């Protein structure tokens, strides 16, 4: 009885998911058109469509909360889904505040990649909520960590834009992209801002995770692959922040760091779960 109910909900969930993905795709197409034809009309249209997509994205999240009666980040699909939600949300707030719409041309494709890869990880079997996850620390730890990583994702997009723009200016390879992309100063400021927001969230995410680990597994730090790689991520960003503040690491070097850092973030997120067994890999919860 309960299981048929759950399957029924999953069907609705699936339809909503593809609807959201379609809206995001339309938004992305407009953002890409904006990259080729920088008329304010396209950026506004793309941005509003992205906001509509985000609303549906949020609806699914709330829907799942009630379906599973818990904060829905209990398998890899849901985690990626929630991370994409944080990423788009952070971009929307960022764009309202700082007005760098061309950032959307880089952020929304990445968000779509995240959502599509989450779609490949849909689990058909009914989800059992494992005991260690039934805790108030679940929403706190995941939200903080994902918010931090979302900001670092923005820094990654800014870093890619910086490298494209810098290559044009430094090597005198001017193309029409020069006018599309913001100035090096703006992109470098963006990098610093995202880093100074993302890093504290990431730090808090790791700290809360370790407190939660103490509750769930009886030890603050277990050196499982997820924890180890989180530490690597943290060290990379700590080094960048330190370098920025003290010896003027900026520009291209900061952009490289942001790109490598985010690659490690993604590996910590996906690679560790899919390749390396450990306490964090969701399957190990469900198969005792």
């Amino acid at each position, binding site marked *: 009885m309960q299981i048929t109910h759950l399957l029924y909900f999953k069907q609705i969930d699936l339809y909503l998911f593809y609807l959201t993905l379609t809206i995001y795709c339309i938004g992305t197409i407009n953002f890409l058109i904006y990259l080729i034809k920088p*008329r304010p009309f396209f950026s506004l249209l793309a941005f509003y469509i992205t906001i509509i997509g985000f609303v549906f994205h949020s609806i699914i999240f709330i829907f799942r909360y009630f379906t599973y009666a818990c904060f829905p980040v209990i398998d890899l699909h849901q985690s990626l889904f929630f991370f994409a939600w944080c990423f788009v949300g952070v971009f929307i707030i960022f764009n309202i505040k700082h007005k760098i719409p061309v950032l959307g041309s880089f952020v929304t494709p990445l968000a779509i990649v995240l959502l599509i890869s989450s779609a490949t990880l849909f689990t058909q079997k009914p989800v059992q909520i494992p005991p260690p996850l039934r805790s108030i620390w679940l929403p706190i730890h995941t939200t903080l960590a994902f918010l931090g990583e979302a900001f670092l994702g923005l820094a990654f997009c800014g870093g890619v834009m910086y490298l494209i*723009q810098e290559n044009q*200016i*430094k090597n*005198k390879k*001017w193309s*029409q992209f*020069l*006018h599309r992309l*913001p*100035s*090096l*100063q*703006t992109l470098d400021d963006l990098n610093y801002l995202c880093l100074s927001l993302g890093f504290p969230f990431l730090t808090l995410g790791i700290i809360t995770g370790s407190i939660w680990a103490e509750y769930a597994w009886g030890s603050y730090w277990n050196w499982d692959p997820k924890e180890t790689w989180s530490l690597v991520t943290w060290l990379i960003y700590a080094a960048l922040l330190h370098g920025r503040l003290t*010896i*003027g*690491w*900026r*520009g*291209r*070097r900061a952009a490289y760091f942001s790109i490598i850092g985010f690659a490690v973030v993604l590996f910590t997120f996906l690679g560790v779960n899919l390749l390396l067994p450990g306490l964090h890999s969701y399957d190990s919860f469900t198969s005792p």
Partner: protein
Amino acid sequence: MNIIVAGLSHKSASIEIRERLCFSSHNLTTPLQEIVNFPAIYEAIILSTCNRVEIVCTAADREKVIREIKIFLADFHKLSLDEITPHLYFYTGQDAIRHVFRVASSLDSMIVGEPQILGQLKDAYRSAVANKTTGSILNRFLHKAFSVAKRVRTETDIASSAVSISFAAVELARKIFDNLEDKKILLIGAGEMAELVTRHLVSHMVKELFITNRTFENALLLAQEFGGRVLKFEELFDNFAQMDIIISSTDAQDIIITYEKIAKALHARKNKPMFLIDIAVPRNIDPRVNDLPNVYLYNIDDLDGIVEKNRQVREKEAKQAEEIIEGEQMRFYGWLQQQEVTPTIITLKEKFESIRLKEIEKTFSHWEGLREEDKENINALTHAIINKILHDPINFLKAKGEKNRFPIEEIKKIFNLSDEEDA
């Protein structure tokens, strides 16, 4: 009613001719008054820049206007008709509309996309308005031209990139620093190009300018002109690390700004970006400094290359701009024609009505013993006949679309309807 453009530009006349035919843009009152005093010309605007002299006017008769404008130009500038005629061009109707839209959008300029011409056209229009030589047609026409120019500028990349070396330098500076207001700029040496670049940077809000020269007096002169501070040439490297933009243009035969100097400055300013412009030949700045992080070195050839590339982009964008103009031109021409439809219909109706009244009066005066009732019937009958006859032609005139554009003049001729202006 027709729009007619007469004039000459860099494409049709050499500078020698243009300077003899140009008008002082500060005082257009006399020529404007003179030209609207010609009987065939109703409204007029005079646009006079260093690249073109154009008279935009409205009139009914094209041939008369062309003759009058030639006489006006020759008399005003005390030249003979034969001297000016070969250099003049005339556009009427759709061609005239297209031409003015192209001029406003800077497609007809010597450097395609340069923004100056729109301002000059606006000034020319303002002078004409102040002298009351424009009417409803030219007012609408010019406002349309301004909005077309705006459309072209926002919807194409025609004006987005710099096509002169000094503008390219400013554009680069803005792509590196974004805001130039708090940046420090150092000019080493002098020279036409270096001064031009400096002038553009200063006009883009750069506040702190330092100037140095081997000859102290020369630096002093430039500093007075631009409002900068003078550094002694020997003290050049004392505050070197503070400088964000350095323009070098000395006649030194050697490199004066070495790799080490820049590397040291970069370290001192914690890798904050530096933009170096080396205009000198032979070069003043070691080309290897471009390999340093956050240092951007451009020499005169690099800037030239950018300008050349931008020029090609502009030419490509110009095609798209022409399409926008073509669409707007057709729409405006449609409006212009529409302006004549209503008066034509009214004159047509009036003419028929007056014929009817005249004939009825004639008939009634001969026909005795006609009852009031019969008179009313005859009145109604004739009225109905005229309405029936006119019904189709009027519908034809009112119909929107391409096909009714041309016949207005023909209908006027067929029914011998004259413009009230000629009366």
